[in-house]
């Protein structure tokens, strides 16, 4: 170190990452508020004022939390990892900023359109619901901006590798590049449907839209999207948490292998979101279901690897017995506790995912609020709590401040509040869903049918859980403000774990990018080519837009 500086990475890179964090935390607040309103409306507690529609707030909630918060946090976090492990040149930083501004401009464009009530089409924007063109144009800009981020990251690793011939890339840089590859390949699908289908249709240049093609392209993107959220959390689990708990990375090869498997198996599987959709050959649905189940392998590798890291670390600290090592974990350190609760949530979350994807069994849960319960565990708990866990050290490390004992305690409380509120909300959603309650619906007694009366207790459960969660959001926003402006100046560690001495050396073939990209593309072509041709050839007539339907 040549310069005395409180920030853990250089000042310029810090500002870049912090810009992303600001967007993420503002989104958290706005989106969380909408979530609270939704639960209150659904339970019949509240009627929205000023002619605001239920689908308007639900669109804000879905877009701003699932698309905006996640993308900005992830890209910002990944820039911090790249800056730390392989470095960032001035030119690369400029292009990163350029990508950021394009994404932000796109976000604002889309957000304004939704807030004006011109795009209540939900975050999946299924045709034939039609939004005002600026909704789609804004989204396209977010994607284009994120691509600039992708290529900046690719370039960073490329430059590093040229300087370090024959060395394996740093683990976290490897992981970031895998995630950005996944994102780039996946967003090609959504970019295609938005540019070729939605924008011309919404501008009135064409009258109709091929609904099934648009939904297929959307889900070609939609499933890898969830892995784009999850992999940064896994980066923290594999390569940062071991350091926080005073241990080492269990195995560098295993971590890389599981990331490679996620890249290969998270894309050719979009049909598992379209299992009830007519017009897709059931044989190809089945094939994609089988491919979906392949992701269980890297998921369980990850679970095993985490348990092993915890057990080895606990035992090294002298805790014995079958499960004594659990006591050796730093439960009072929020940098560990928040992501750990996230990991625990992934047990029911992942299980629910297996149930959703089980072909015919999907009929039990499809379009019920069970699905909403499911992804509030996956992205709304596992991913978000890990992101919070990252923020507790990342934000102070970027702003040159300390994570104080007080904020640490508040963070522990925040985590417990979140876990408690979510258990109630998501638990009610899961049960109500199994009883048939639909998702994406405002308050209704459904003409007084008996079945609907079974749901209302669970709707109230969701409102109670949602209100507790909103307290969690306020706490987190306060914590963020504290770490940015109020906490005392100081140096906060950027925790990067080392690989265990027991681990086998990483074989070089794991770095064979051409091979991994080749297999990924081959699997996509295999899973999609024939059914996609089939979909196009046997399409029903295109649909006109329905833009007045759900105002």
């Amino acid at each position, binding site marked *: 170190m040549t310069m005395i500086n409180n920030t853990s990475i250089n000042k310029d890179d810090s500002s870049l990452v912090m810009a992303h964090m600001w967007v993420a935390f503002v989104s958290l607040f706005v989106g969380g508020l909408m979530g609270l309103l939704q639960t209150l409306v659904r339970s019949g507690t509240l009627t929205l004022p000023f002619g605001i529609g239920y689908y308007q707030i639900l669109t804000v909630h879905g877009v701003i939390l699932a698309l905006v918060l996640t993308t900005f946090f992830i890209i910002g976090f990944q820039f911090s990892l790249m800056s730390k492990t392989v470095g960032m040149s001035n030119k690369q930083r400029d292009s990163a900023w350029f990508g950021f501004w394009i994404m932000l401009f796109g976000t604002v464009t889309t957000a304004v359109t939704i807030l004006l009530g011109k795009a209540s089409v939900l975050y999946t924007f299924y045709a034939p619901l039609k939004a005002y063109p600026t909704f789609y144009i804004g989204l396209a800009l977010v994607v284009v901006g994120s691509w600039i981020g992708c290529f900046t990251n690719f370039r960073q690793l490329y430059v590093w590798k040229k300087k370090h011939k024959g060395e394996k890339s740093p683990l976290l840089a490897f992981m970031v590049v895998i995630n950005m590859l996944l994102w780039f390949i996946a967003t090609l699908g959504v970019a295609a449907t938005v540019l070729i289908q939605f924008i011309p249709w919404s501008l009135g240049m064409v009258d109709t839209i091929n609904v099934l093609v648009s939904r297929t392209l959307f889900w070609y993107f939609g499933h890898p999207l969830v892995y784009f959220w999850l992999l940064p959390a896994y980066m923290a689990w594999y390569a940062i948490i071991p350091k926080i708990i005073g241990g080492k990375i269990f195995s560098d090869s295993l971590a890389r292998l599981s990331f490679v498997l996620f890249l290969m198996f998270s894309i050719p599987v979009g049909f598992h979101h379209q299992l009830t959709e007519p017009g897709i050959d059931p044989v190809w649905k089945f094939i994609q279901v089988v491919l979906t189940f392949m992701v269980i392998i890297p998921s*369980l590798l990850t*679970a*095993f690897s985490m*348990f*092993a890291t915890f*057990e*080895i670390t606990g*035992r090294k600290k002298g805790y014995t017995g*079958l*499960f004594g*090592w*659990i006591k050796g974990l730093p439960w009072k350190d929020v940098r560990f506790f928040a992501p750990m609760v996230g990991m625990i949530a992934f*047990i*029911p979350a*992942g*299980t*629910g995912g*297996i*149930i959703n994807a*089980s072909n*015919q*069994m999907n*009929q*039990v*849960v499809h379009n019920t609020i069970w699905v909403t319960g499911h992804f509030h565990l996956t992205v709304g708990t596992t991913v978000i709590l890990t992101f919070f866990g990252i923020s507790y050290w990342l934000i102070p490390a970027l702003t040159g401040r300390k994570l104080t004992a007080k904020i640490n305690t508040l963070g522990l409380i925040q985590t417990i509040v979140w876990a408690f509120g979510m258990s109630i909300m998501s638990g009610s959603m899961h049960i109500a869903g*199994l009883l048939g309650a639909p998702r994406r619906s405002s308050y209704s007694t459904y003409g007084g049918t008996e079945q609907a009366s079974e749901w209302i207790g669970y709707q109230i459960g969701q409102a109670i859980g949602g209100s507790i969660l909103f307290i969690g959001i306020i706490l987190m926003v306060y914590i963020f403000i504290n770490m940015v402006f109020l906490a005392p100046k100081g140096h906060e560690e950027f925790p990067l774990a080392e690989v265990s*001495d*027991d681990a086998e050396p990483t074989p070089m073939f794991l770095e064979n990018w051409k091979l991994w990209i080749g297999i990924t593309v081959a699997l996509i072509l295999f899973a999609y080519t024939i059914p996609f041709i089939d979909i196009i050839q046997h399409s029903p007539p295109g649909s006109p837009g329905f833009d007045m339907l759900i105002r």
Partner: protein
Amino acid sequence: MSKSKHKTNDVETFSEKEPELKGTLIAVFGLGAFIVISWIIVYVLFVSR
């Protein structure tokens, strides 16, 4: 560098330091059981509807 010597060295450190992972084994089994049981519950619901 002699390859065989390297090998024996490796094996020695391996057997000395092989970490104890009994808890991990049970935990992963428990996780598997949780998945299977939850799956069966929804499966029964599916079949009975």
